[in-house]
């Protein structure tokens, strides 16, 4: 027996969730190692490598959050929601409007951040409910059109000049007078609200003010960063990313509990054959509305954590392309698998999102790559055995070429692994181990 067999033998005795943690951890570490080796080989400084790790992990976390929420809709229930960006926008905008300063432009309500976060989730779920009532009656492909349309309506409404700033209230119902409040979306210029990454400030600085005395955690992290030559701002961003990872774990636990339950079983049955599920006495309409609202609330929260961490919440961050990126992440990971959603989010962030940028910064630092004006010029000099203009052209138009790259990756994946990286796994929807002979190791009911 080889060592490799020993390891896989030992692994197969562990509960599924430990194996999943090891799997995700292994992929993450291997990817970091690859980036570090390539970076150091080309003379990239430690600070910017750690900065790249920070960026990768941030995007991995936000794509994992959204992919998990989408997996509940599409992977489990088969609800083809291509309006994810819209529900994220509802969450982020509601949060921003509730928490923005009353004397700002546009004015907000100035409520505490937590009220904004909860309010954003409730608003996203409410919009989901309104969308679900008529939309769930139509067939799957029309449902997709309805959700895409809704997300664009939301984005256009946020862009609209007439909602840039408006007043609510100022009337009386009987003896109760509703006070006038000024609100606004800020139109095309967006809305400035307290950024959600203040959570990192509270964790790192006593009193929560950036530049104050560091807390114990802050001392440890800044000490570590200082030793490696990593700037404070990267460590602060990194701390927010750790908070996001905490949310990923929370999403994962919630959705895994749903997946391994009778409720999850009904969801799968709806995906497989709704009429058969109804004929077995399942109220599929009510279940679909519930699950759609829950997924929308999670999407709203993901939107808050992602876009709310920027200084501005603006309509341009909620273009339909965001939804498609999330779909790519989910497809790469394997729809129907929650672990797959996290793996997909990470692989997308590392290789399809940050990877090309990393290569570009390496190429720019090491070679004289100036992009020629047209692709014709690039190929013309290739004829005289000078590849640099072509490389320069490719590096220069990397943002566009990324689309081609994503397309190629998807095609290769569909041929090589049509179910995505982890979509082939049998994940049995039941709260207990269904096999007659209960497994020696615990099936996973006790993981709280």
């Amino acid at each position, binding site marked *: 027996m080889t060592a490799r067999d020993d390891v896989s033998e030992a692994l197969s005795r562990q509960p599924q969730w430990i194996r999943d943690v090891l799997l995700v951890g292994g992929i993450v570490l291997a990817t970091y190692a690859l980036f570090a080796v390539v970076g150091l080989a080309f003379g990239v400084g430690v600070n910017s490598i750690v900065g790249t790790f920070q960026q990768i992990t941030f995007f991995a976390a936000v794509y994992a959050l959204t992919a998990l929420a989408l997996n509940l809709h599409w992977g489990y229930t088969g609800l083809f929601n291509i309006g994810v960006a819209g529900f994220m926008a509802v969450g982020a905008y509601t949060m921003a409007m509730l928490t923005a300063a009353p004397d700002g432009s546009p004015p907000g309500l100035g409520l505490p951040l937590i009220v904004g976060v909860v309010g954003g989730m409730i608003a996203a779920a409410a919009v989901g409910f309104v969308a679900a009532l008529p939309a769930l009656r139509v067939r799957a492909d029309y449902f997709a059109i309805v959700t895409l349309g809704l997300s664009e309506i939301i984005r256009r409404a946020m862009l609209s000049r007439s909602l840039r700033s408006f007043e609510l209230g100022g009337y009386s119902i009987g003896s109760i007078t509703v006070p006038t409040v000024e609100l606004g979306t800020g139109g095309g210029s967006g809305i400035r609200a307290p950024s959600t990454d203040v959570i990192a400030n509270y964790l790192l600085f006593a009193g929560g003010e950036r530049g104050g005395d560091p807390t114990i955690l802050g001392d440890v992290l800044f000490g570590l960063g200082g030793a490696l030559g990593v700037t404070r701002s990267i460590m602060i961003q990194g701390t927010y990313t750790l908070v996001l990872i905490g949310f990923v774990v929370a999403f994962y636990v*919630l959705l895994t*509990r*749903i997946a391994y*339950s*009778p*409720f*999850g*079983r*009904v969801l*799968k*049955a709806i*995906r*497989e*054959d709704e*009429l*058969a*599920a*109804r*004929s*077995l*006495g*399942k*109220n*599929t309409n009510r*279940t679909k509305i*519930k*699950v759609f609202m*829950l997924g929308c609330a999670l999407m709203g929260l993901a939107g808050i954590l992602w876009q709310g961490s920027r200084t501005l919440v603006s309509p341009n961050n909620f273009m339909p392309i965001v939804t498609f990126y999330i779909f790519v992440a989910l497809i790469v990971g394997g729809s129907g698998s929650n672990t797959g959603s996290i793996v997909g989010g990470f692989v997308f962030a590392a290789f399809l999102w940050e990877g090309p940028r990393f290569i570009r910064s390496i190429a720019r630092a090491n070679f004289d790559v100036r992009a020629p004006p047209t692709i014709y010029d690039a190929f013309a000099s290739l004829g005289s055995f000078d590849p640099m203009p072509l490389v320069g052209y490719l590096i220069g138009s990397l943002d566009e070429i990324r689309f081609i790259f994503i397309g190629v990756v998807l095609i290769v994946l569909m041929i090589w692994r049509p179910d995505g990286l982890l979509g082939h796994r*049998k994940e*049995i*929807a*039941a*709260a*207990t181990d*269904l*096999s*007659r002979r209960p497994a020696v190791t615990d099936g996973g*009911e006790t993981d*709280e």
Partner: protein
Amino acid sequence: MSDVETEAPADEQTTTETERRSTDAPILEIRDLEKRFGGIVAVDGASFGVERGSITGLIGPNGAGKSTTFNCITGVHTPNAGSVVFDGEEITGLEPHEVANRGLVRTFQIAREFPEMTVLENMMLAPKGQLGESLWRSVAPVARGEVVEQEERMRERAWETLEFFEIDHLAEEYAGNLSGGQRKLLEMARALLTDPEMLLLDEPMAGVNPSLEKKLLGHIHELQAEGYTFLLVEHDMDVIMNHCEHIIVMHQGAVLAEGTADDITSNEEVIEAYLGGDV
């Protein structure tokens, strides 16, 4: 099949219904059922009853309206006129899940298993009154304990039913990998787990090989002895004539004849309809 307990039925109505129903009234009664699709009248005033504890056959040439009748009974279609009474209760126009929860459960002409779920998952979906079908109970830490307990009880029952139908060796296969006949068995096993009063089987023998057909019929008779009522649509005349106590013949959306096998085989009109007499 043993009666391993399921949780108390979700709606208390069923228990009160059980007490007050009389045993000799038909369990299912269709009156003047009518269903039109645009200009086509698929069911045109069909009326019949099904005796409690019987195996009743519903036959008729293609296009006679058998499947549409089935769909109107089970809530897939809403009839344009007429009424469906099950167990003394009006169920006309109810949703499919409401009909199923009253104890009237159907199977389909082409088996509708959940292909990317295992056979056991298919089975576990069926039982009524599952606590874990509520979202919060599935998620909340303490309530989930009850859900797990209930799942363990239902698992026993699922395995027993699979053994009864002799497909327990397939329990962990994806249902989509089963053969056509095995899917029919799975569908019937799954329907039984809902604790129905009556099963509507839409062409249960279609695409089933003779030895499996024999087995299926054996199961149907065993279940009849336990008190289940069956209504089957079937094209196989041998099955209908040899196994159904009561036969209903539909033609052009209405009931043409009713009676025992002997009544039907000697009925001129029926022979005419099947041999394609004047329309």
